[in-house]
C-alpha cells in the first residue's frame, strides 16, 4: 500500500531518493485560540483546489485559548479520506508539544518549525525547515496586536513552497475564507502567506519527498461539515420547530441551520418566519418542546450529544409510547462531564437504541458522509412522521465538526411524507377514529392534530397506559395488546429503513460490518488487507437500525464477520447480538477503537491480522 511506501531508508537527510506525490499527511500543531483555524482551513482548501482528494481533522481541546491543538490534513490520490496515523509533514508551532510531536514522527518526515524551538537537534533522520516566525511577521503586520493571528499564515506560504502548492490557490482559498466583506483581513493574511513563501524560496533546499501535483478529482465538489449538511437536510425537509441546548459537538448544527433559515425560510409574502427556533433551558426542555411540536403536527427536531441524550431519556420513552414524531440529531462524542467532549466516539449506539425505561426501541439512521447527512436527515423527518416515533440521526464529532469534500447535494425530489393524519374532512367521512388501532396491519395508527376543527377529532395523549381508543387503562390485556402492536410497528420499520451498502468480495471468508465514520477506515483497510496480506474482505455498511435481512444474509455468506465499533464495549456488536441466532452470533468478531480520535485504517488492519493469525 502506498502509505507504507513512504517509509524511507535511514538516514535520509541528504535528499529523497524518490518523490511522494499526493499521498501523505500534514499535521499542524498549535496552541488553541491562536487563530490557526484560518491558516489550516486555507491550507486544506488550497489542496482541494489543486484537485487532490483531501480531508482535514481538527483535534482540539475543550478550552478557549492556550492548550495544544492539532490539525491534520491528508492528501490522497487514492481518495482515502479517513485519518492516517503516520504524519509526514509536521508544522510545529506549539513549544509545549513540539518535542513529543517530533519524536513521534517516522523517519523521513519533514518538520517546519519555529526556529527558537531548535528542534533540529532532536533527530537526524528528519528533514528540518526552521523559520523565524516572529521576525517574518513583523514587517507584514504592522499592528502588533494582530501578529499572533497572522503569523500562522506564514506556514501556509512555507508549506506551499515545500509541497509545490500553487500560491494562486492559497490566494483563492483566502478570498473564499474571508469573503468579500473581510477583504482587508484577507489582504493582511495574503501578505503573510507570501512572506512565508518568499522566505522558504530564498532559504531552503528541499530535501524531503512530499509534493502536491494538480489532479482533477474535485471538479464540482463542495467542502462542508457534517453538521452543516444535517442542517441543510433539515431545512429542505421542511423542519418548522427546532429546539436545542448548546453542547459540543452539536451546537454548530443548529447555529448553521439558523443562518440558512433566516435566508431561505422567511415567507416573502408576509416577511414572517416559517420556523421557530428555541434555545431551551436544557435538554430536558428541548426534547419536550420537540415532542410537543411533533404532537401538534410540526416537523420538529432537536440536536444534542451524549450528555443531552442521557437527559432526554424519560421524554423519549414517552415519545415512543405516546407515538409522537420528532427527529433527534446525536452528534456523538466522548464521555460525561469533563470527559473529552471534543473527541469523537460512537458512544450512544446502545443507549439511543433503547433510550428510557420499560421496553423501548428507537430507529436510528447512520449517515457516513455529508451527502448522507443531507439526504438521510430528510428521510428521518419522513420516517418519524410515517412511523409516529422519535428517530435518531447518529453522527459523530468527526463527521459533524470536520470539513469533508463532498459531491453537491441532490435536490430532494420526493414530496414530504406527513404520515397518517386525519383531517376534519376525513373525520366527517369516518365519523370518528381510534388513535392506537392498527387499521392497516402495519402497526401504525391514525392520528389527528390538536386544533383540528372537528368534534370527533380529540384524543388524550399519555404514556403506556392506554387502549386503542387512547382511553386510560391499567388492564393487563390492553397493555399487552399495545406492546404487541408497538413491536409489530418496529418490525414494519425494517422494510422501510435505508438499506445497507454491501460490497461482496467473491473470495472473501471474512466480512466487515460498520456504520457511520468507521466507513473510511474500513474501506482503506480492505485495500490494505488485500494488497499487503492477500486477505480479501467483504463489507456491509449499516445505514440504519433496526437491521434488515441484508445483514443476516451477509453473515450467512461469511465465515467470520468483524463488527467495527468506535467504543470500548462493542455497542454495535451488542445491538446485533440482541437479535441474532446463536449460529449467527458465533461468527461475530469485534474490532474496537476508543481513543477519541477518528478511526484509522492501520488500526483496523493490524487488528484483523492479529485475530486472523496471519
Amino acid at each position: 500500500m502506498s502509505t507504507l511506501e513512504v517509509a524511507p531508508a535511514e538516514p535520509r537527510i541528504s535528499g529523497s531518493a524518490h518523490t511522494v506525490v499526493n499521498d501523505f499527511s500534514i499535521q499542524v500543531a498549535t496552541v488553541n485560540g491562536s487563530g490557526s483555524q484560518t491558516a489550516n482551513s486555507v491550507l486544506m482548501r488550497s489542496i482541494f483546489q489543486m484537485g487532490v482528494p483531501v480531508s482535514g481533522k481538527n483535534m482540539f481541546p475543550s478550552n478557549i485559548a492556550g492548550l495544544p491543538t492539532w490539525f491534520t490534513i491528508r492528501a490522497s490520490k487514492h481518495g482515502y479520506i479517513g485519518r492516517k496515523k503516520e504524519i509526514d509533514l509536521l508544522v510545529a508551532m506549539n513549544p509545549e508539544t513540539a518535542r513529543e510531536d517530533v519524536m513521534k514522527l517516522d523517519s523521513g518526515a519533514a518538520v517546519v518549525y519555529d526556529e527558537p524551538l531548535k528542534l533540529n537537534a532532536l533527530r537526524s533522520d528528519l528533514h528540518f525547515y526552521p523559520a523565524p516566525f516572529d521576525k517574518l511577521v513583523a514587517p507584514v503586520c504592522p499592528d502588533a496586536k494582530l501578529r499572533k493571528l497572522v503569523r500562522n499564515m506564514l506556514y501556509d506560504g512555507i508549506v506551499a513552497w515545500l509541497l509545490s502548492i500553487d500560491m494562486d490557490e492559497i490566494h483563492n482559498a483566502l478570498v473564499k475564507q474571508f469573503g468579500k466583506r473581510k477583504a482587508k483581513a484577507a489582504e493582511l493574511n495574503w501578505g503573510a502567506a507570501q512572506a512565508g513563501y518568499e522566505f522558504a524560496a530564498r532559504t531552503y533546499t528541499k530535501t524531503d519527498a512530499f509534493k502536491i501535483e494538480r489532479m482533477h478529482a474535485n471538479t464540482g465538489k463542495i467542502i462542508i461539515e457534517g453538521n452543516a449538511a444535517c442542517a441543510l437536510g433539515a431545512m429542505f425537509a421542511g423542519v418548522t420547530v427546532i429546539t436545542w441546548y448548546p453542547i459540543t459537538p452539536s451546537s454548530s448544527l443548529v447555529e448553521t441551520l439558523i443562518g440558512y433559515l433566516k435566508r431561505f425560510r422567511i415567507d416573502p409574502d408576509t416577511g414572517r418566519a416559517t420556523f421557530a427556533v428555541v434555545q431551551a433551558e436544557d435538554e430536558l426542555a428541548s426534547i419536550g418542546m420537540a415532542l410537543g411540536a411533533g404532537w401538534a403536527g410540526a416537523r420538529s427536531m432537536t440536536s444534542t450529544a451524549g450528555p443531552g441524550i442521557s437527559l432526554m431519556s424519560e421524554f423519549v420513552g414517552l415519545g415512543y409510547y405516546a407515538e409522537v414524531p420528532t427527529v433527534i440529531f446525536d452528534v456523538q462524542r466522548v464521555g460525561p462531564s469533563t470527559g473529552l467532549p471534543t473527541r469523537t466516539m460512537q458512544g450512544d449506539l446502545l443507549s439511543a437504541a433503547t433510550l428510557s425505561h420499560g421496553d423501548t426501541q428507537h430507529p436510528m439512521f447512520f449517515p457516513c458522509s455529508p451527502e448522507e447527512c443531507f439526504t438521510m436527515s430528510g428521510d428521518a423527518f419522513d420516517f418519524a412522521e410515517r412511523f409516529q416515533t422519535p428517530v435518531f440521526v447518529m453522527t459523530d464529532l468527526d463527521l459533524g465538526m470536520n470539513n469533508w469534500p463532498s459531491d453537491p447535494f441532490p435536490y430532494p425530489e420526493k414530496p414530504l411524507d406527513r404520515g397518517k393524519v386525519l383531517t376534519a374532512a376525513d373525520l366527517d367521512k369516518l365519523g370518528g377514529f381510534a388513535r392506537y388501532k392498527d387499521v392497516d396491519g402495519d402497526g401504525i395508527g391514525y392520528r389527528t392534530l390538536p386544533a383540528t376543527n372537528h368534534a370527533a377529532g380529540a384524543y388524550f395523549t399519555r404514556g403506556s397506559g392506554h387502549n386503542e381508543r387512547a382511553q386510560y387503562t391499567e388492564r393487563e390485556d390492553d397493555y399487552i395488546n399495545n406492546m404487541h402492536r408497538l413491536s409489530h410497528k418496529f418490525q414494519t420499520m425494517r422494510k422501510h429503513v435505508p438499506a445497507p451498502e454491501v460490497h461482496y468480495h467473491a473470495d472473501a471468508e471474512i466480512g466487515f460490518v460498520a456504520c457511520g465514520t468507521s466507513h473510511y477506515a474500513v474501506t482503506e483497510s480492505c485495500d490494505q488487507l488485500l494488497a499487503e496480506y492477500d486477505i480479501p474482505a467483504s463489507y456491509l455498511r449499516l445505514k440504519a437500525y433496526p437491521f434488515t435481512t441484508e445483514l443476516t444474509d451477509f453473515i450467512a455468506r461469511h465465515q467470520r464477520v468483524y463488527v467495527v465499533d468506535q467504543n470500548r464495549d462493542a455497542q454495535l456488536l451488542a445491538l446485533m447480538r440482541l437479535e441474532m441466532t446463536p449460529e449467527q452470533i458465533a461468527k461475530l468478531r469485534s474490532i474496537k477503537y476508543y481513543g477519541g480520535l477518528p478511526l484509522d485504517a492501520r488500526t483496523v488492519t493490524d487488528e484483523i491480522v492479529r485475530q486472523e493469525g496471519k
Partner: protein
Amino acid sequence: MSTVATPPPPAKKVNHIGLEVINYKGAKTTLCAGCGHNSISERVIECFYEMGVEPWRVGKFSGIGCSSKSPAYFLNLSHGFNAVHGRMPSIATGAIMANRTMLGLGVTGDGDTASIGIGQFMHLVRRNLPMIYIIEDNGVYGLTKGQFSATADLGSKLKTGVINDLPPFDCCALALRWGATFVARSFSGDKKQLQALIKTAIAHNGLSVIDVVSPCVTFNDHEGSTKSYSYMKEHEEMLQDLSFVPSFEEISVEIAEGEVRDIELHDGSHLRIRKLNRDYDPTSRLAAFTALEEAERKHEVLTGVLYVNTEKPNFLEMLHLAEEPLATLPQAKVRPGREALDEIMEELR
C-alpha cells in the same frame, strides 16, 4: 288510542357558539370526594362554556400528580397531553409554537411546578408564552401519599406530625418577578373569583399564571396545615371584587370613575376590578411584591388579581411567526426551491 299532547321539549341551553355545557365536560373524576381540584375542573367547564370557546381549539396540558390527572375530567372535545413530571411547560411550548391558533390550558400542581418542574416553570414565565397555567396548590404530593411539596408553608404540619422547616416558594411571586403578564391567586372554594380569573386568562394574550389554593382532603386538610379549607376560611384576604364582561356582551352598566378599574383585554373583554379594603394598582409589579410581602408577614393568603400587563409582547410575537400554524404549512412554504440549494452549493465550492 288517545292522543296526549306532549309539551315541546325545553330548548336546550347553549352558549353563543351554539354548544351545550355537556360539550365542555370530561370523564368522571377519580379524585377524592371534596378535593379542591374537582371544583377547579367545574370552573374550567363553566368558563370555557360561558366564554364560547370552541373546545377543539383548546390544547390541554399537564404533568404528573393528582392535579395533572384532572384534564381528563373536563373538555373531552379537546386534545390533551399528559406529559412527564414537571415538564408540561416544554410540551406546551412546542405544541403552541407548532400551532399558534391553539388555546393552551395547562393544569399542574405544586409538586409538578414548584419542586421537580421549577426550572421549566421559570423559563415558561420568562418567555411569556401565551397560555393559561393553573397551579392546583395543596402543598403536598397526593398520588405518593402526602409528602411536602416546595409550596408548603414554613412550620406547617403533615398528618404524620412532620413539621416543614423550609420556606415555601411563592409561585405568584416567581411568576411576577420573571415575566408572566397575568398573575393571580385564588381559592378553589371561591367560585365567583375563580370564574372571573379563568375567563380573564382565556381572554389574555400572554402567560396567565393562576395559583389556586386547592385543599387535599386526604393528606393536608387537618389542623396545622396552611392549605386546608378551614385555614383558608380564616386567612384568605381578598384584594378585590372581580367581575368579567366578555367581548360578546354589551357593557350595560356605566361605572363611576375611581370606584372600579376597568381593564380591556386582548379579545375585547373587560375585567372589572372593584376595590375592597385597600387601594391596589394591579398594573404595578412593585405594588404586587409589597402586597405579597405584607400578607406573608400577617399570615394572610392574598387572593385576586396581583398583576396584569396587556402590553408586553408574548413569545410567539417575539418569534415573528407566520400567522398560519407552522404544523400545517404546505410544502411550498417550507421546502426552499432548487435555486436555493444551487446557491448554497455554489457558496461551498
